[in-house]
């Protein structure tokens, strides 16, 4: 992203490409993706399956699969390139909240011990310090009876409580950034709402930055200051969340939001499917499905155009009206 309005972002993904060698050939999972997370802000990454949001998250966490490589680009965290200097990423300064609270804790160990193990590896202090701090964290994430919770096994917690445990784990080493991978999709809406409120409050109290990976626009609207929309491994559009949701500009974002049951006048879907990462179309990756594609769309990937209000759109024809049937 060129002229970001925020100075010195905490996290800056700069023109990142991540490719993967597969039996079917080179998979271009991410190409030329840029985004920034300013200190204390919540940034959402949204897109459908196969858009590369999980790979982006893994690159930031430094847990890309072995077969992946980064031909271009950098990820800067607190000013340091954490891709080049792997040791820099592993200091607990980036916390992670996984998607599925039911799969993310080992059932045969006490939940508290599993978090203490993380702290032993990454946080300074003695075991006694860690225990005291974890009890304080359990209190912060509003687990009932924090001291007793230390002695419990994962199955003794409900789904919402397990997600609170995992949030406590993500915070256990005093991160500056927390990366959350759809942390509420496995939960009921009432629990989801509580967890989102908790994340918002913790981020505000602790001055945390959040990078929130999701496919749920409702969650995005509830939590994120700004959003980056990915399609087939490239940025389609980015900007302040309200502006993007109220007035989407990229044809993909417009069609996708028109699929939302709150908004759709008729349920149509988007014709075609997301291309395989091994067979990305030339030029704009959305052009084979795009109702306003022109001949030039197949030539070269469209550059990200900066618009007023901190928005960027990767579509030179974004001012064109979509044909009515596409949005009907």
């Amino acid at each position, binding site marked *: 992203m060129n002229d970001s309005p925020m100075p010195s972002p905490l996290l800056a993904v700069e023109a990142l490409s991540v490719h993967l060698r597969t039996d079917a050939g080179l998979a271009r999972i991410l190409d030329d993706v840029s985004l920034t997370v300013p200190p204390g802000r919540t940034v959402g990454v949204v897109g*459908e*399956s196969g858009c590369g949001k999980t790979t982006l998250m893994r690159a930031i966490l430094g847990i890309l699969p072995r077969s992946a490589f980064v031909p271009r680009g950098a990820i800067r965290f607190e000013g340091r390139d954490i891709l080049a200097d792997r040791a820099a990423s592993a200091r607990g300064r980036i916390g992670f909240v996984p998607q599925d609270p039911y799969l993310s804790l080992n059932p045969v160990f006490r939940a508290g011990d599993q978090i203490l193990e993380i702290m032993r590896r990454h946080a300074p202090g003695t075991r006694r310090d860690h225990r005291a701090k974890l009890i304080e964290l359990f209190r912060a994430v509003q687990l009932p009876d924090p001291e007793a919770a230390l002695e419990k096994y994962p199955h003794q917690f*409900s*789904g*919402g*409580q397990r997600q609170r445990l995992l949030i406590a784990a993500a915070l256990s080493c005093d991160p500056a950034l927390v990366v959350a991978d759809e942390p509420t999709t496995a939960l*009921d*809406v*009432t*629990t*989801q*709402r*509580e967890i*989102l*409120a908790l994340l918002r409050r913790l981020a505000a109290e602790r001055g945390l930055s959040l990078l929130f990976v999701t*496919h*749920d*626009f*409702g*969650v995005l*609207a*509830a939590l994120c200051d700004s959003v980056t929309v990915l399609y087939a491994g490239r940025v389609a559009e980015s900007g302040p*969340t*309200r502006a993007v*949701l109220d007035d989407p500009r990229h044809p993909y974002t417009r*069609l*996708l*939001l028109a*699929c*939302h*049951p*709150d*908004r*759709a006048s*008729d*349920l*149509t*879907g*988007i014709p075609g*499917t997301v291309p395989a990462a091994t067979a990305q179309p030339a030029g704009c990756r959305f052009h084979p499905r795009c109702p306003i594609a022109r001949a030039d769309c197949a030539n070269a990937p469209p550059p990200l155009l900066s618009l007023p209000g901190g928005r960027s759109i990767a579509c030179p024809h974004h001012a064109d009206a979509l044909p009515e049937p596409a949005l009907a």
Partner: protein
Amino acid sequence: MPDPILAARGLVVELGGRRRLFRSIPAVRAVDGVDLAVAPGETFGIVGESGCGKTTLARTLLGLQREAAGEILLEGRVVSGQEPVAARRMRAAVQYVHQDPGAALDPWWRVGRTLAEGLAIHGVTDRAEQEARIAETLAAVGLDAAMAARYPHELSGGQQRRIGLARILLLRPKVVILDEPTAGLDLSVQAAVLRLLRDLRARFGLTYFFISHDLSVVRRVCDRVAVMYLGRIVEEGSAEALFREPRHPYTRALLAAAPRLDGQAAGPSLPGDPPSLRAVPSGCRFHPRCAMAVPLCAAQDPASEAAAPDHIVACHRWRDVPTEHRDAA
């Protein structure tokens, strides 16, 4: 309302419950006194949090789970009170689409073989007829006939849903139970699947029993909606009325919790996890979490009342629930 195609009266389902030598485990009532009537051709939605009993209710209607009390009527005939095998035979017109269509397909079998198996079980053994019906049904769900030669792992999530639908459509059901039919689907695929469901309902004259936790989807596709809480239906009405003017405090809290595109949080949040079926609260089951609870609520179980024509609510205080609260999204 026309005669219901599927109805239940005072349905009670107990789960678990074993008597051992030294310790007996009491059964829990996952469904506790449910009345419902599904009109032919409608989409009847069931919403509620995990553990409220919506899947158990569906399994009982299907005949996989035996009811402990109450009656189930299919096209006016009593089909309850049977052993599971007999119950399923009597309810062949009711079919179920699994929540996870990938898990419901045998990974070692080509899709065509899985589809043919269902037909064979239901007595269609002629190879040519099987193939003709499979090709016809695949076309109806928008898939190419060549799809029959594929293995489940070769299909996308949306294609798997379509196969799951094709598999039960082959059996020419009248009532289809859809368990979370859009869970885990991307928005654009979800829209296509919902549209397909609507088209199939019209084309084959189906009735849907639609279980979902996605309130946006339920509002969009259901004609009528029942809200379940701890084994009871606490509110039921037309989707339009229920979403516009929820009467039960629980329904209001549930609707308020759903994330909305406009980003507005509507109303207060609901504290606490749903209580366990092993410790059902006295009186109104919702009272410990209810902001409007009064002493009566803990003492007496509220009866279902008609708040409006075709809008039933089980709450002592429904008249005091503010109604202007939720506007159209």
